[in-house]
């Protein structure tokens, strides 16, 4: 399933990376501790987090994640958007909290794989 399909199904707002939504999503990881995500997320995962500062882009880029979804309508910092554009990392925003959003992403990914 592509990032764009998840954006559409969950009505996510694409804050940046509109041209980079065609990457295949291989899974997801939810967390606000950067080392946790660094250690445990895998290539192609969508990352659900409430962190909005620019260091999330470095983590997503180094781990080659498919994108970052911010929860609770959180807004990314200006520097975060600039870095994400440069690194071609999509930043998406949902009005849902982490638990609900992760559940919906999980359902979409597993339904597609059945």
């Amino acid at each position, binding site marked *: 399933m592509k990032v764009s399909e998840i954006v559409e199904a969950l009505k996510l707002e694409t804050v940046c990376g509109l041209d980079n939504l065609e990457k295949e999503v291989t899974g997801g990881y939810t967390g*606000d*501790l*950067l*080392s*946790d995500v*660094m*250690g445990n997320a895998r*290539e192609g995962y969508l990352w659900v*987090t409430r*962190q909005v*500062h*620019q*260091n*999330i882009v*470095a*983590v997503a*880029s*180094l*781990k*080659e994640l498919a994108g970052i979804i911010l929860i609770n309508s959180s807004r990314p910092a200006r*520097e975060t958007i600039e870095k994400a554009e440069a690194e071609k990392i999509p930043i998406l925003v949902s009005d849902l909290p982490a638990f609900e959003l992760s559940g919906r992403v999980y359902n979409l990914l597993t339904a597609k794989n059945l």
Partner: protein
Amino acid sequence: MPVEEANSNLYSGSFHIEGGNFNTAGIVSTNIKSILKKLGIPGDLVRKAAIVSYEAEINVVSYAKKAVVNLMVKPGFVQIEVIDEGPGIPNIELAMQEGWSTADQKIREMGFGAGMGLCNIKNYSDNFHIETEVGKGTHLKMIIHTP
């Protein structure tokens, strides 16, 4: 450097990390990653090196004054050395325990300082060596084997 040694180096270079500057945190790791990619190192090993160097970089930014990072790529392995000028680690055994951290509130609010950095470094490198002297600094050496 002897000629033979120079020839067997696929890459050798150094980078600098500035302590305390979270705005530039990750730049050295990003550089290392792109160098390894260009050298044709397999993707999973490049990502391992990226994790290891990023965690070391964040430790320098969080705690040290500055550091030099030496990257050496030879046939069979990638070696990343991070030599910092900083407070050193009084108890390495404690510092290696997952969850143990001396990070302040500001660092923790950003999602760093979870006490996982050194564990990630150890887990994602094939050889890991740490030397530290309180009041002077810490020297990390990580090796990742390549085909």
